[in-house]
């Protein structure tokens, strides 16, 4: 029994972080129909910014989080203006943007490899290796803090989307681009905003990832399919779906990892992606069979 609770807690804490990693991806897809394959590489970019702040200035990773998010948001505005805006009229828009973001992911990987070399890195604040004990169950502080910060950010994002005027506009654009434009929403501005928020979420996730996982520039290939499976399970474009998907899959992966073997826990995500695409391509909370 204690073992099951233990696995559940570890799975949920990781699931929180993975939810934050996936939420930006989901938001960007919802508003702009861009499947951003570069998202995980930008998370690693955020992790390296945090790593740099931690190693050379001694700043705590969680304190570095807003900095990484701000830098990534700025990069997002730049990227959108330079690259994605001009693709909006392309006939094969969604396919084009997938290939473009793939190219972008390779560029980010190469750049990070050139700047920071390809060795495995991890930031090591005190709490990353400490743990609480409740009875027999141990709770690693690093993962717990990361999970709590992630879920707080996602809650903030949901409140923003639900109750602010900009949030209304973003949700309206997600539901129907043309109708939103007719009603006076500046779709162009909303797209830039959503892309910047999506990348800011990547930067924030990077800060948390930096002390939860070890990372190196090419690591993002492992994450892209993992995040995709989470986002696709929840339904692309739905933040709530992403959170639910992340929690479900990471708990399943934690059980698989403990009972069958650590190498197979990542396989859970990839197989899940395959199965979801087949059985229910629109995911749990999605309404858009047009993706299929």
């Amino acid at each position: 029994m204690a073992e099951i609770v233990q696995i559940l807690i570890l799975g949920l804490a990781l699931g929180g972080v993975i939810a934050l990693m996936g939420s930006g991806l989901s938001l960007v897809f919802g508003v702009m129909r861009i499947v951003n394959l570069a998202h995980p590489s930008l998370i690693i970019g955020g992790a390296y910014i945090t790593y740099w702040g931690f190693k050379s200035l001694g700043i705590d990773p969680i304190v570095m989080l807003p900095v990484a998010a701000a830098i990534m948001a700025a990069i997002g505005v730049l990227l959108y203006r330079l690259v994605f805006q001009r693709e909006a009229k392309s006939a094969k828009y969604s396919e084009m943007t997938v290939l473009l973001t793939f190219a972008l992911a390779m560029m980010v990987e190469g750049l990070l490899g050139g700047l920071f070399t390809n060795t495995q890195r991890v930031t090591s604040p005190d709490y990353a290796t400490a743990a609480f004990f409740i009875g027999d169950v141990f709770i690693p502080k690093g993962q717990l803090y990361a999970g709590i910060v992630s879920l707080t950010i996602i809650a903030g994002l949901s409140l923003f989307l639900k109750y602010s005027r900009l949030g209304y506009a973003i949700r309206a654009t997600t539901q129907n681009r043309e109708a939103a434009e007719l009603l006076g929403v500046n779709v162009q501005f909303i797209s830039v905003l959503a892309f910047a928020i999506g990348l800011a979420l990547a930067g924030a996730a990077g800060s948390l990832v930096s002390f939860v996982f070890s990372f190196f520039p090419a690591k993002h290939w492992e994450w892209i399919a993992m995040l995709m499976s989470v986002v696709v399970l929840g339904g692309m474009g739905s933040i709530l779906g992403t959170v639910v998907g992340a929690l479900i899959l990471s708990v399943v992966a934690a059980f698989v990892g403990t009972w069958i073997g650590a190498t197979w826990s990542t396989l859970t995500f990839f197989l899940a992606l395959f199965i979801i695409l087949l059985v229910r391509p629109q995911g749990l909370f999605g309404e858009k069979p047009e993706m299929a």
Partner: protein
Amino acid sequence: MAVTLQDSSASAVIEARRAHNEKLSRKADQTRATWFPLTLLVLLAALPLLQFVGNYNYVLHLVLFTASYVAMASGWNILGGFAGYVSLGHAVFFGVGGYFSGMILARYGISTLVTAPLAGLVAAALGYAVGMVTLKVRGPSFIISSIALLMIARILFDNWHFIGGANGLTLPPNDLSVQWAKVPYYYAMLAIAAFTVWSAYKIKHSKFGLGLRALSKDEIKAESAGIDTRFYKVTAFALSAFFVGMAGAVWGEYLTYLRPNIFLLILISANMVLMCILGGKGTIAGPVIGAILIVALNELFVATMGASEINILGTGLVMAIGLIFFPLGLVGTLARSGKLPRVLNWD
């Protein structure tokens, strides 16, 4: 009366259309420079004669490397270019072909040059099975599922002890002298590349190829026009896997070792996509030109800067620039503006 009139006018229309089509195809035959690829092939086939006068192993290696990518990119083109399904997981078939033939070589000592077609068939069977599953979704979902396929294959190959796991397999080198050791693989790869390009041409000009192009434009319309789209695209997937698998088989023995982190790389898939996009998706000459360009560019990067990070950065940069400014590729862009030189018109 009316009926006979309709009948005769209908047959007259069909006659006229047939005559027109024949005229068009005659004209295409006249403008097509078939002599150019054939001369190129003869010249490349004569290239190993250089070994009599000196050591040109590097030249042979470069041509062999390019030929392997010509075969892979042209194979990828059947699915990605003709049918319009972009796959980023084709490195799986490269690895499966390499491992299948490599295992036979390691266990029974039969050269991969003999078993390469068999490896292609195994890759095609896998492609058929995977296609049955993943080709139900299209667009971005298909691309993502192809990446997932590569990730699954990588984990399985890394952990499958029968085929050496992450350490891979070491294959026996052949007992030719250094001067001639590359030559058998050189000819094998050249033959595979030529066969692939020829097959791609035949496929494009068959009824099957016409169906693929139709379904790449609009799948629902193609379906209602009587094309069995599911069978067409799954077969296209299997065919494209076949050629990639053959190239993988010969490449494995040429390297003399097989390792998941050499064969099951997303960079290899990306290169196939990149070559087709740069050269021109859906054209015959496109993947060939793209392969030559990318290999040359790669060599340049490695020779001048030497780091693999720069290589990845450069590949990504070239891909992005190509996508943004020349979405039709070199051959496609030139053909659209009517400036395609005749030697590159292989369609």
